[in-house]
């Protein structure tokens, strides 16, 4: 297994790219440690699949280098990069048994049959497919087929990295959680470097120790699941992670304070000086629906809609023209009610041109 370094990667599908808009990947720098579980998370079109294809060697980047354990592999073809890949749709041989499917990547490399047997047995056990080993792959359900595909990706212990490209797309929603957790468990057992590409936050956060969030060809945050939820460093991360996502409210900055609809909003800490004056650029307040409560004082708001989603309610409120979502457990105010919103100051941040611009007070610790 290997450490993977991406250095100043840029990619454009155009022959003569000019401005940043011509690039689908804009200056990617990343260092992935040996044996880590990583996710690349972002919406369709954010560049995550392009990045995956560049790592696997299916695509040559316009600029930049890819290193495995410090060795430059940018010019190596896919077959020399020693990578295992699991795709959206199961890739297995229907005419073979499950055992032979799992053994295939090993036999292909001339691995000794005794070792093949040992590896296949171990992987089958981890995937709970031992009792299917002698069955033909053709008759398996889609989720079992995809399990076998995953097994084929994991059966070799000499690969540099195992990459999963939206591997749960074909899986029934009710079975997804078992495979999601299975993959996490597998990583803990085999400790291979794994990269998981998805647009699904639950899949990414469940699987990865470190999640790389991408938007529009750039990395907007790299962090643990807790960091992404608790302290998004970009408004996109706040929006994309969590359901509903973070409220992003327009505001003005005056004398180091944030003003929203005429109300002073207390932030987690001091506002960092902008590149120009404080207050320059587009300023917004970010606060998650989970960190707002109703009270007798605070920012006056009107309740527009209440959705009881069982374990909590999602309350749509409006302040002036701005919609603010609040998650409340237990009794929710009724539609049309006048109320006040209280923002948890330690979870309230200022963003300037999308990027976080407040200092966390505990950061000094």
């Amino acid at each position: 297994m290997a450490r993977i370094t991406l250095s100043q990667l840029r990619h454009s599908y155009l022959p003569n790219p000019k401005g940043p808009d011509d690039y689908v990947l804009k200056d990617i720098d990343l260092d992935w440690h040996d044996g880590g579980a990583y996710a690349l998370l972002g919406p369709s079109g954010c560049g995550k699949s392009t990045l995956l294809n560049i790592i696997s060697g299916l695509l040559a980047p316009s600029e930049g280098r890819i290193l495995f354990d410090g060795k430059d592999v940018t010019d190596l073809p896919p077959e020399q990069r020693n990578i295992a890949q699991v795709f959206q749709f199961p890739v297995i041989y229907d005419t073979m048994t499950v055992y032979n499917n799992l053994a295939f990547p090993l036999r292909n490399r001339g691995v000794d049959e005794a070792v093949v047997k040992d590896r296949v047995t171990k992987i089958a056990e981890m995937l709970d497919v031992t009792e299917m080993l002698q069955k033909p792959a053709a008759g398996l359900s889609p989720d079992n087929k995809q399990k076998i595909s995953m097994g084929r990706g994991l059966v070799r212990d000499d690969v540099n990295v195992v990459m999963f490209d939206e591997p749960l797309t074909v899986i029934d929603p009710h079975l997804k959680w078992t495979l999601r957790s299975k993959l996490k468990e597998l990583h803990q057992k085999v400790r291979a470097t794994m990269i998981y590409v998805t647009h699904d936050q639950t899949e990414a956060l469940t699987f990865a120790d470190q999640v790389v969030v991408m938007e529009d060809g750039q990395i907007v945050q790299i962090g643990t699941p807790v960091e992404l939820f608790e302290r998004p460093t970009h408004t996109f991360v706040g929006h994309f992670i969590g359901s509903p996502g973070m409220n992003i409210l327009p505001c003005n900055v005056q004398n180091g304070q944030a003003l929203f609809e005429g109300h002073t909003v207390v932030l987690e800490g001091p506002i960092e000086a902008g590149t120009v004056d404080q207050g320059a650029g587009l300023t917004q307040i970010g606060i998650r629906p989970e960190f707002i409560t109703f009270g007798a004082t605070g920012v006056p708001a009107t309740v527009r809609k209440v959705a009881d989603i069982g374990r909590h309610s999602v309350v749509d409120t409006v302040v002036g023209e701005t919609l603010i979502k609040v998650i409340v457990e237990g009794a929710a105010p009724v539609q049309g009610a006048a109320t006040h919103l209280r923002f948890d100051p330690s979870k309230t941040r200022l963003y300037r041109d999308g990027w976080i611009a407040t200092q966390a007070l505990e950061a000094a610790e």
Partner: protein
Amino acid sequence: MTLELRNISKQVGGVCHIKPTTLLLKPGHFNVLLGETGSGKTSLIKLMAGLDPVAGGKILMDGADITALSTQKRNISLVHQFFVNYPHMTVFDNIASPLKLAGISGSELQGRVEEAADILQIRPLLARRPQELSGGQQQRTALARAIVKQSKAVFLDEPLANLDFKLREELREQLPVLFAGRGAVVVYATSEPEEALLLGGETALISDGRVSQFGPTSELYHRPHDFTSANVFSDPPINAAQITKNGTTAHLNPETSWELSGDAAALRDGIYQVAVRPNHVAPVKTQTACVPLTGTVLVTELSGSDSSAHFSIGKDVWVSLAHGVHSYEIGAVHPFYLDPTKCFYFAADGQRVA
């Protein structure tokens, strides 16, 4: 406008796919069909749309029997999980196609297509072809075609299932607004309990080709009639175990018991099934979640703001779902706390008794 199903059923090769089903579907809100893949949602929609013949029973639209009418004559729209558009036509012509079939042309056609495109925010794309669009834009095109017609009934069969998570969130908010005030009966099939709750309206819980319960969505969630309904309406699956009721105490196992109140306390002594949703099994003790359960952590999951843990107690597997990020060590023994005020109790026949 109403759509009424009276004892409709479906058989394929002598096998019953849809058991006799009676439902009265009304306009003004979403009518959600909630059930797992393969439970019969699509089969039921096909019967209502006239794409499959019923084995028995009647379908009435506004009181008139339409059971024998072809799909074309039922004045309905259908949107599938997979984006279905005509690849050789522009977005404009795709949206216009049902109007052209209805003999509408000229400025009325133009106006109605543009209005639908505006609602779905695809007006700048009208000259493009479907393959030049993203998945979300293709599905918006299919939705525009479904609303342009002003049909009496609209069937949406898992229309968001193949879209990105965030796009799904956005469209799910827009859909009820889109159909509000149109007077059409809207039927929406989904396999996700949370989606049903977010859409609100009324829900039919479907399991094994049968509607187990029908009524206001949140009512069904909070007051399931039987175990099947409680289970269909839970993701992750609802926790279920056997208890022995003795006096006013429920015994789960020799170590775990709790006091019963209300209807549950009044039950005859004996064995019952208890079910409790994962969000009422907490990883930390609270005022209400107070009955300690000790389990071995099997797997854990994290979504944006929720943590779940699957753990075993003896042979039973339980799930806890909590707000915030909780870390668990797989294989470790961890305390969990059950909220006894949120338990459902079922008799041997599966009917809820408390």
